[in-house]
């Protein structure tokens, strides 16, 4: 038995214990489901790619949560104003040059490792919010469109067609360019909202013009994100809808809403989960691209894409280490999600589980 499997088993055990305490007999009634989870956990633990991806994602999430807290340098202090020599210090290991940031500094003389800790939080928050809203909107529209059919379907599909006719980056750039001025005014008036937002992003409330830019990146990305989900969900719903168990549910007198939630949604969820995992990577890179193009937050916010674009101006003579390190950070985040998604695609495939089940019987 391997460690990953054991850890996942413990997690499942904790969950079932909690459920058992709430409703006695739960685990007995759901023994098949728990078994299925355990098989999934086993299949996952057997996938090297998946375990590696899971580990990377775990680190990403942990750093995103604690990053701004453990970061040892405030991002809002421009050190080079007092000491211009600190600008773009190259990487250097302690025995040779102690007291200097190991991986060097950026334009403002800030330790790039400390800055990237803020970056983890920002990019994680953006991608999770975008993927969450994008998928929720997409799922709802996709479910309705696929199940209802007829005029509703036609309208929703034309709408997704329209949004998909734009290159997503261009559309997002357009939204991200025109939105901030409005949002800035809004944030200026609603101090409580500004405070919440700054806490989420791990930034100071004073940065509200930058928060406005971040918020407009959110909105711009959500606008271009949902159609993909709608398409996929609709396609899956169309095939699930043909299954007689939907007709059987109608005959059981269930309402349309209950059929959608209880019978269709659970059956389209697996491809959605895989897609969400992959999209966490895509959204991370997309957001970084927007800020790389200067449409996200500006100084002093240490957003990864923006920092790379700044360093790009001195590339490669002075800033090779900055571009390389921050590029690796982005690669790390995106690769983690992609590896995880690639493994989940296999793990969530019922065929894999069936096969494992047979094997278990043999053992």
């Amino acid at each position, binding site marked *: 038995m391997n460690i990953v499997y054991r850890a996942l088993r413990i997690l499942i055990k904790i969950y079932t214990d909690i459920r058992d305490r709430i409703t006695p007999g739960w685990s007995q009634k759901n023994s098949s489901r728990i078994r299925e989870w355990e098989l999934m956990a086993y299949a996952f633990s057997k996938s090297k790619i998946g375990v590696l991806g899971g580990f990377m994602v775990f680190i990403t999430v942990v750093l995103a949560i604690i990053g701004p807290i453990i970061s040892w340098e405030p991002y809002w202090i421009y050190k080079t104003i007092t000491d211009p020599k600190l600008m773009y210090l190259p990487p250097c290991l302690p025995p040779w040059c102690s007291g200097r940031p190991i991986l060097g500094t950026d334009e403002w003389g800030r330790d790039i490792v400390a800055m990237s800790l803020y970056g983890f939080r920002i990019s994680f928050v953006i991608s999770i919010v975008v993927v969450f809203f994008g998928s929720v909107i997409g799922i709802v529209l996709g479910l309705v469109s696929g199940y209802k059919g007829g005029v509703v379907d036609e309208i929703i599909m034309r709408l997704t067609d329209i949004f998909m006719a734009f290159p997503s980056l261009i559309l997002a750039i357009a939204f991200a360019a025109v939105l901030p001025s409005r949002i800035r005014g809004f944030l200026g008036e609603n101090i409580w909202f500004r405070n919440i937002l700054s806490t989420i992003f791990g930034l100071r409330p004073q940065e509200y013009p930058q928060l406005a830019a971040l918020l407009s990146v959110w909105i711009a990305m959500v606008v271009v994100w949902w159609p993909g989900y709608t398409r996929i969900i609709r396609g899956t719903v169309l095939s699930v809808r043909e299954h007689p168990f939907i007709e059987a549910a109608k005959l059981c007198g269930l309402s349309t809403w209950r059929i959608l939630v209880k019978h269709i949604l659970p059956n389209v969820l697996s491809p959605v989960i895989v897609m969400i995992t992959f999209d966490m990577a895509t959204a991370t890179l997309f957001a970084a691209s927007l800020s790389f193009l200067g449409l996200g937050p500006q100084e002093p916010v240490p957003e990864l894409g923006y920092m790379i674009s700044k360093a790009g101006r001195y590339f490669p003579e002075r800033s090779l280490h900055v571009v390389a390190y921050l590029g690796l950070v982005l690669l790390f985040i995106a690769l983690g999600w992609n590896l995880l998604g690639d493994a989940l695609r296999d793990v969530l495939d019922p065929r894999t589980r*069936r*096969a*494992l089940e*047979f*094997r278990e*019987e*043999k053992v």
Partner: protein
Amino acid sequence: MQSSGEKVVLNDGEVLRVEKLEVRFYTYAGVVHAVSNVSFYVREGETIALVGETGCGKTITTRAITKLIESPGRIESGIALFRRRNGQIVDLLKLDDEEIRKIRGDEIAYVFQDPSAALDPLYTVGYHFIETVKAHRNNVSKKNIIYLAIKLLREVAIPSPEVRVKNYPHELSGGMRQRSVIAISLSNMPKLLIADEPTTNLDVTIQAQILELLQELQKRYGMSMILITHNLGVVAETANRVYVMYAGKIVEEGNCETIFYNSAHPYTQLLLKAVPNPLKKIEKLESIPGTVPSLINPPPGCRFHPRCPFAMDICRKEEPPKIKLDDNHYVFCWLYTKR
């Protein structure tokens, strides 16, 4: 590959003799013993039927003959002697890829269950004929193949065959597609036709047409035929001899009438009672309790013993021997051993 000492020979008048065929699938889930110790033979011009329920190994048996089994499947052992057109006798399982390719589609042809999936949707019906003939006789001109195609399509009762050769598969109805597949399979005048559930997806009236057609073509060309089916009605209508399979093994073999009127194996008997005969008044259908076992861990001894009403102790432990009851009538069952 072959362990048993006795020599297998192809008797006069036999086209194919398969002896002790063993096929396993090495899946993620475990080793599937799909076909175990299967032996049968086919005479010139006769139709044998392999009968059995889903997953009993009848399809895999016939695919193994021409080595159409793919990874994770593997032919473990066995002999398949085949008399070629030129009189030469070969063991099909020992041929290399190129030699077996030359026999497939030329001397041994297949018709599969699903006619809508058997034809490549991107090519016309005529192109399938051209390919099939060219794969074996490269010197025939395309024009002549199309003539042949039209002739064969006419023989399988397709109206206006001149038009149909130019059609794509999706432009034909299900029945017509199956006729086309049969015609394509016949395009090299095979000695042996293997029809794998050729009518399962078709309507009864079309099924009747296709069965009649197959019988007629068989007579005309003197082909031998292996018919795979789960439909006992189809067996009764067409087969000369019958092999009943259960869970990867043959349980009984005999002439068609022997199997229907004097069946010996409990499985065959129960199976016959489970099928309603519309011409008879039936009060109650007999049913076989339980379900087909998994072939990953097949039951020890006789594979039917968990569902058999007459199961004895020995059935649970030892494999039943092949017992001769009559000419051409063999059964694998402990009930018939003399003690």
